[in-house]
């Protein structure tokens, strides 16, 4: 993700920072070092029947710091939001050698500026995330996935059931996956009312493994999403989370077609961000698209945190 680096002198790996610092089962909070993988953290939380509702694509192997820095999410974002919604504390190494903290290890913490949100999704361009604390969630009592071949109409049906799905994905072949979690009675009722066949839970693990070599994420107002993905080049492979207005495109076409889709997406009030591509393709298309109206503020923040522009030069929008 991100543009090709303009310069690279030092690779600073976080992989040895892989400890669980503290897990308070009763308080339902966990603090970890940034290099721990999501799978290792989930393994630890599962011992207490808890979990972090993160299911990013291109799994397994993501580190927590990487997920925070990229802002990557997956289908569970529909129910649980993005990590910024359950991130309660962060620790960041800055170029001047200081370790800065934001938030804390308790859920209620509102003092000072919300520095956590600055680093979330900043691709390590303001500092290197070294630790994070999260609110965690209890494993649901019932977790059932059902499927349909009914395309957008089926997706709308599932999204408007009295019990909202925790995840809902639609694919370019018209298939729809809906995941319902919660109490046994509520989940059983909605699954019965929908009448769709039940899928094995492992289908989500396979879905999270998706990582096309040329891959774009399209984010758009929910009302515009179906029109945008249906307008992709003929035969394009894609999957989407219509409930949150995000689609992923496995690109099999040339760069002009990507630029054209990006232009249509931005006209609709959305964005197209390249998740992966060979360097020449990425350079031609550009990783991020049209800079946002806040670009001047972002540049000032970048200069304040990293005045010599040594962190990830060229990767992020500033």
């Amino acid at each position: 993700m991100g543009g090709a680096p303009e310069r690279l002198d030092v690779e600073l790996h976080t992989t040895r920072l892989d400890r669980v610092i503290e897990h308070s089962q009763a308080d339902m909070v966990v603090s970890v070092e940034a290099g721990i993988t999501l799978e290792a953290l989930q393994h630890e939380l599962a011992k207490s029947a808890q979990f972090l509702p993160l299911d990013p694509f291109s799994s397994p192997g993501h580190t927590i710091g990487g997920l925070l820095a990229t802002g990557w999410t997956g289908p569970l974002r529909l129910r649980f939001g993005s990590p910024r919604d359950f991130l309660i504390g962060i620790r960041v190494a800055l170029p001047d050698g200081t370790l800065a903290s934001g938030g804390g290890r308790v859920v209620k913490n509102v003092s000072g500026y919300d520095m956590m949100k600055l680093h979330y999704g900043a691709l390590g361009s303001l500092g290197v995330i070294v630790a994070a604390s999260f609110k965690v969630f209890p494993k649901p009592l019932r977790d059932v996935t059902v499927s349909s071949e009914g395309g957008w109409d089926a997706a709308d049906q599932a999204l408007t059931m009295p019990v909202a799905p925790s995840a809902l994905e639609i694919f370019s072949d018209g298939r729809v996956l809906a995941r319902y979690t919660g109490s046994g009675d509520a989940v059983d009722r909605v699954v019965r009312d929908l009448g769709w066949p039940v899928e094995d839970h492992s289908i989500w693990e396979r879905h999270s493994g998706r990582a096309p070599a040329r891959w774009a994420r399209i984010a758009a107002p929910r009302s515009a999403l179906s029109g945008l993905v249906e307008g992709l080049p003929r035969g394009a492979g894609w999957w989407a989370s219509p409930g949150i207005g995000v689609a992923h495109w496995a690109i099999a076409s040339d760069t002009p077609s990507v630029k054209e889709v990006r232009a249509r997406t931005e006209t609709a009030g959305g964005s197209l961000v390249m998740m992966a591509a060979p360097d020449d393709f990425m350079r031609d298309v550009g990783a991020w698209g049209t800079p946002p109206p806040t670009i001047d503020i972002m540049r000032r923040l970048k200069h304040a945190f990293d005045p010599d522009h040594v962190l990830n030069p060229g990767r992020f929008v500033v």
Partner: protein
Amino acid sequence: MSTVAVEKPSTADELARRLHDAASQKLAVVPVGGGRAEWAEPPNVSTSSYIRRGSTA
């Protein structure tokens, strides 16, 4: 051609020191998480135009 140093600190304090050392020399630092497509990972390193001649652990 330039050499890329590879730093793998084991504590946050050590990481902060290494970052400060690099920044004080105005060296470009890319944080690396280890996932397949993360923040951090220089994208498509094997095909990148920049040149990696060697590394130091």
